[in-house]
């Protein structure tokens, strides 16, 4: 029965990633990310093997870092740089959604070719991990504003989290805590950088950083 809920949660995680691809409002983007992380936080409890200390620590860690702390920092940054929307740079909303659909197809193809040592607890896990990872990539390369790129990076991290569920039993707790610390510090630093770009240039359109000035 648990596999049904795992499948549902995985489908919802990918739906949220697609939704993120389709929105340009920064507030909704951060909210969608927080919701995705919220679902991921409860995913370990659906795995077999009861409720252990490992699962509780991972779930509370995800909740505190990815659902509360990071969105709070990002909301602070959104308010601080006082912009509401991000315009896709390279291709428009529909095109990036279509590419997202293509990437989902690709991830199903890739995962059918992937040889794993053990059987995953759901055949949707690897495809949705790949999809989330790819959509994170896509967000990073298709958006202009630094904040959206940070969220893209975090979506990628969520994809990696899904992969890590495969090795949940064997990964030491310390490694996962290290990952949490890493992304937290990463987002913190990026928040400061965004702030500095804003102070220096009065905007945070990073595509203009490549043009040289006297």
């Amino acid at each position, binding site marked *: 029965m648990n596999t049904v809920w795992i499948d549902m949660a995985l489908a919802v995680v990918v739906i949220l990633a697609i939704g993120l691809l*389709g929105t340009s409002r920064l507030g909704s983007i951060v909210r969608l990310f927080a919701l995705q992380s919220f679902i991921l936080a409860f995913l370990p409890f659906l795995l077999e093997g009861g409720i252990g200390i490992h699962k509780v620590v991972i779930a509370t860690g995800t909740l505190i870092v990815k659902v509360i702390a990071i969105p709070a920092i990002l909301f602070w940054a959104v308010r601080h740089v006082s912009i509401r929307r991000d315009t896709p740079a390279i291709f428009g909303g529909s095109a990036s*959604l279509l590419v997202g*659909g293509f990437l989902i*197809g690709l991830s199903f193809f890739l995962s059918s070719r992937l040889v794993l040592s053990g059987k995953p607890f759901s055949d949707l896990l690897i495809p949705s991990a790949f999809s989330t990872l790819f959509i994170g990539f896509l967000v990073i390369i298709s958006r202009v504003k630094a904040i959206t790129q940070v969220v893209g990076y975090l979506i990628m991290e969520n994809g990696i989290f899904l992969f890590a569920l495969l090795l949940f039993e064997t990964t030491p707790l310390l490694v996962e805590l290290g990952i949490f610390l890493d992304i937290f510090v990463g987002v913190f630093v990026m928040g400061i950088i965004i702030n500095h770009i804003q102070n220096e240039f009065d905007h945070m359109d990073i595509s203009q950083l490549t043009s040289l000035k006297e």
Partner: protein
Amino acid sequence: MIPFISVLSRLAACLLFSPFLLGVIGKTKAFFAGRKGPPLLQPYYDILKLIQKGSVYSVTTTWIFRAAPLIFFATTLIASFLIPFGGLKAPVQFWGDALLFTYLFGLGRFFIILAAMDTGSSFEGMGASREAIFSCLSEIVLFLNFAALAVLSKSFSLSQMIGESWWASWTVSGPSLILVGASYFMILLVENSRIPIDDPATHLELTMIHEVMVLDHSGPDLAFILHGAAIKLFVQGSFFVTLLIPFQSHNRIIDATVFLAAMIGLAVIIGIVESVMARLRLNRIPSFITGAFVLALFGLIIAIMRVL
């Protein structure tokens, strides 16, 4: 004798219950806006009032303009015979009736578009062009949805696609159904010109899609279009409800009650969506439909992976 009663009750549900859904949507929106709102039966009053009035025809119009409301009404009503709902089996079912289902709505829409162009009004031509482009995008998504359901149910007949045997295979088809359901709901909003695609309450010609096409219709013609649109919402909504709540107790009264309650629930959900969302800018609508497309594609891929 039993099939006769079943067909009659199906017709009664379509004709009599469908305007009620519009009333529920209106009441929900009024509730969110903190107003009292029009009475639940307001759509019935509107239709009755319009039927009693006379029609005015512009001299530039031809028979197409007069035929369109009737064709729209008739095709929508015929389409309702293809799907099972509320414990009633579909009187007409054959291999591939999903195609007929889609193109019956297509035919009705085609004539409404023709009638809009027949008036020679530039406003209506604009609405017609919008309706044509958005419906042709949404049709692709609708067929992807049908394809996913066809793969899951190994049948291309609507009655089997949304039939009884879903609970048994819920573990296999659950994620696929969630995705197809989400995608279909988005298409439901597009097809029935609800917010965020089109605002049925506004009367600014520049932003309307469906409403602007029927500006020149009056009297009984407008009543047919109004009622036809309500039946369309009912039919497409009942497809959604039967897909996600395949409840069958084989007791007619319980089945009908559960179904009608679920339909009212759907109307409330549409009302909530309309209250909390703003209308999308016209050039953002294709990306809304693309979102539905990607969801349907994802659902289809999962269906193919799990079933084939």
